[in-house]
């Protein structure tokens, strides 16, 4: 940082300050946004009938990089963890249920990392959404380029659990 030109550092400092002051949460999906409603929610060329539910804004950014997904998002803002005093009330769950029940949603994809807390959150949210729409969860398995032989037992077991018929 000390070796960089002064102007560059100034610009960076300003960008950091602006981010701190301007970035808040989208009022619809709770993704990070400088505007009241984020770009993804405003986009007209995205599918309105699919919602991908994630724990954190970082997950939205990761999924966007794939350019595979064209639907909308909902950021829960964490995972259920009674030990840390986080119950469903502390997360953006009721707003999600509201969205799914009021809008014309055909599928809710739960994209939450596999962990004890992640699985609990997935099961909980899944139960609440099931009366209104089709609920799916992303598959967990072997990384691309990963060799079956070198995969650890836990990942392999997960991958076996989530196997699909060859089409």
């Amino acid at each position, binding site marked *: 940082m000390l070796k960089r030109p002064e102007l560059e550092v100034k610009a960076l400092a300003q960008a950091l300050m602006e981010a701190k002051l301007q970035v808040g949460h989208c009022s619809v999906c709770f993704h990070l946004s400088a505007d009241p409603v984020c770009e993804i929610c405003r986009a007209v060329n995205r599918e309105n009938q699919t919602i991908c539910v994630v724990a954190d804004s970082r997950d939205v950014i990761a999924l966007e990089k794939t350019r595979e997904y064209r639907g909308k998002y909902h950021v829960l803002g964490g995972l259920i963890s009674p030990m840390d005093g986080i119950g*469903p*009330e502390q997360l953006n769950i009721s707003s999600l249920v509201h969205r799914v029940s009021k809008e014309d949603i055909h599928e809710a994809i739960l994209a939450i990392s596999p962990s004890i*807390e992640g699985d*609990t959150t997935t099961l909980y949210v899944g139960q609440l959404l099931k009366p209104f729409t089709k609920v799916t969860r992303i598959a967990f398995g072997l990384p691309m380029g990963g060799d079956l032989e070198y995969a650890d037992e*836990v990942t392999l077991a997960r991958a076996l659990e989530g196997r699909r018929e060859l089409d």
Partner: protein
Amino acid sequence: MYLKTLHLKHFRNYSDQRVEFCAPKTILVGDNAQGKSNLLESVELLATLKSHRTSRDRDLIQDGEAWGQISAALERELGVAEMALILRNGSRRTAVLNGEKLRRQMDFLGTLNAVQFSSLDLDLVRSGPGERRIWVDTLLMQLEPVYAYILQQYTTVLKQRNALLRQWGENSTASHTTQLAIWDAQLATLGSRVIRRRSRVLKRLTPIAQTWHTAISGHTEELQIRYAPSVPLTEGDPALVQQAFLDKIQQRAIAEQHQHTTLVGPHRDDIDFTINDTPARQYGSQGQQRTLVLALKLAELKLIESVVGEPPLLLLDDVLAELDLSRQNQLLDAIQDRYQTLITTTHLGSFDAQWLNSSQILQVKAGVVTP
């Protein structure tokens, strides 16, 4: 498997100590509190990632230091494994295997196998059920390293569920009930995995322990090991065990809401030992209990050897002096030169001369090991 070298840096009272093992048996001799057990503890950590003496890494790091390191060269049939475990004050450990930093520490397990036999184990029969659960869990982790992961997951679910039960009060909502049902399902899924594995390992261990027990007790006594899970164990289908688990949770639901803690699950299991149909805990003499523990430890050695395919190490911490001469000899006969054995003692006097001649003897004084 054979432990060739051990290098301790800032570990307990060792500043920087290299030890080379050059005989199947090594006797570490020295006064109390000089570091003999610390050395065995470092090997235990390489084998299980746990110490039976502490759960805090800062206890393992030398006073005033920020980190400590245990490194070892272990000869196995397929070649030499270089192992290193770096402990940090207030931060995560690093496990390194053959120069490669492991992403998950669980992958460290199963490289070095060891059976620990300390004077504390002599109380295994009489002590609380928690000690017996630790005993069977430690054995399982070495036989199937994935068990460490399952147990850790179970413990997380248990803690989360207990936290939720503590929040239970007059104003509990429907959301509370929904959440609890999900934690119940997770507890039952992971808990049944723990129960099934514990049951399986005890079934395999029992006949071996019985054979040893008969030999040591002079064909007079019959040992029985009975697993007493907190959830009735049905054979066969894992789904049945899970269902039995959920039923039992249902039965204890009201009690759990009053006591704010989880009352059902493998964290409440026990293991019963009986000799000639009488509970060893209540009726066994001290001698009988020692014979029993000795038989268990020898069975552990054999079982690990048959599963892993190589004889594990044996760590005898201050325990030989606690056994009478005939049990000592039986133990020594059983291990011979087959299992590399590290022994700590305060006096060489109680050892057989033939034994001393075939062993490497190291002096331990104030964190320094000398031949």
